[in-house]
């Protein structure tokens, strides 16, 4: 456990955070799609040491049938942390936190997926946190959206997310675990950036009305950058496919 006194969260003199970032700096972000062989679609997303794997299965049938809906696909979403992903080992049984995050991520994805195209089926999205260093739910939904795109599921827009926060009195973007646990506020935000719509918004901690506005604007800025990366990684992949004259969708059908 890091002692609370050990760390200077924001160095006013140098204008930098505990890891040298400026308030508006994201950690290095890496994205990859099509990383898993069995899934219809998959993605690996990293924000610094936060590392998330997402996989999509479906549209597919489920039993018992009375859980399906006649006019649309249902979504089944699991946000789950690997036991070794956290500082202290996490019991693999779903925690109350994981259950809540699965819900807010599901509701965010419901806003983007054209579920009416696949009645009486389920589309399953599984998000595995392989390493947790802050911002796992927003990196998770970023990965989930990429995996859905990789699976060829039609969507209104991609979803990109980032956690902003208040740390050492400053509004900062892409909070890491130290900042999350020792800072004043952590605010995960996810959007359909092309449509300018917020699909996930939570705040843990305290902000004034002014700080909130500053934070949401910072989030929007970062989300737009993440969105560009998402589009570019998908473009790369589909270009690669068409060059090779083959199509992943066909492979899996």
């Amino acid at each position: 456990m890091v002692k609370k006194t050990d760390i200077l969260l924001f160095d006013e003199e140098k204008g930098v955070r505990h890891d040298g970032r400026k308030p508006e700096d994201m950690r290095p972000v890496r994205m990859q799609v099509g990383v898993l062989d069995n899934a219809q679609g998959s993605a690996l997303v990293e924000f610094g040491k936060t590392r998330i794997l997402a996989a999509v299965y479906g549209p597919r049938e489920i039993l018992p049938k009375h859980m399906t809906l006649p006019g649309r696909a249902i979504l089944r979403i699991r946000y789950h942390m690997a036991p070794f992903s956290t500082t202290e080992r996490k019991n693999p049984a779903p925690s109350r936190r994981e259950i809540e995050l699965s819900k807010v991520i599901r509701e965010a994805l419901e806003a983007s997926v054209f579920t009416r195209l696949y009645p009486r089926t389920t589309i399953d999205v599984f998000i595995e946190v392989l390493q947790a260093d802050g911002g796992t739910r927003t990196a998770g939904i970023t990965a989930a959206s990429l995996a859905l795109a990789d699976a060829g599921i039609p969507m209104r827009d991609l979803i990109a997310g980032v956690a902003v926060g208040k740390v050492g009195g400053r509004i900062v973007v892409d909070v890491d675990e130290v900042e999350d646990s020792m800072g004043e506020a952590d605010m995960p935000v996810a959007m359909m950036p092309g449509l300018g719509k917020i699909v996930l918004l939570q705040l843990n901690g305290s902000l004034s009305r002014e700080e909130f506005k500053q934070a949401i604007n910072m989030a929007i800025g970062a989300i737009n950058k993440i969105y560009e990366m998402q589009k570019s990684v998908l473009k790369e992949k589909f270009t690669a496919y068409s060059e090779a004259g083959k199509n992943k969708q066909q492979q899996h059908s």
Partner: protein
Amino acid sequence: MSLTPSQIPLVPKVKKDTIISLLEEGKRIDGRKLDEVRPIKIEPGYVEKADGSALVRLGETVVLAGIKIELGTPYPDSPNEGIMMVNAEFVPVASPYFEPGPPDENAFELARVIDRSFRETHAIKLDELVVVPGQKVLVIWDDIYVLNHAGNLIDAGAIATLAALATTRVPSVDKDADPPIIKRFEYEKELPMEKMVITATIAKIGQHLVVDPNDEEESVADSRLSVSFVRDGTIAGLQKMGEGALEPSDVDDMIELGWKTAKKYFDEIEKAVTSYKRMLKNNAT
């Protein structure tokens, strides 16, 4: 795992149309104005065997919060602080759609939204709840029991929680016993609170924002935003819910409407708590 609910009744399209066309005229299906909350009735002390409690009626929504104080072990990273635990039970008396069993994602979400609003603002002076430093502390259990679900359970739960906590008394502890034991129903002091915290929920239906949505409004709403506030107006939590999306400008408006609503809630709670404490005092003398 979170699943798209398949049990929730589909609201007939015609009902949704009615609700929206009324909203276009600035009206709501139950006759309220868009920024009008339903009648609130708060009854602190409803459960005498609890250390604090409040029965809250928000329109036809009925929620009962009960506080029990227990002895427990502190968290390793906060050895000198008591613990607050929030648990919500959507018991099946409250709705044809509630099933007996462990809490579902909605109950966990409600509990965690309220929990965070108190925890992150250090609303309760947890450092005054230590029995043996590093070993034994008091655990404040807030159990939120939904008795009738007619919409906006989060606000009703937050009102009941604050009213219950504000009237909670801390039982005496026999520290000489090994292990220490709580002397049930012998009270020492009021629960030490640093801040008052409440949550107000705004629903977006079509292009309209309404406060304190009832169950019909919830079922046609695109999204809801629960905003928690400290008494001084600081935002103490946010939770976007529902399958729809929000414009950034919506969020600003919802926070503003939320604060207007929160002030009403605070006022009602303060009235009820003051009158309850006066009654207690009169009974004691």
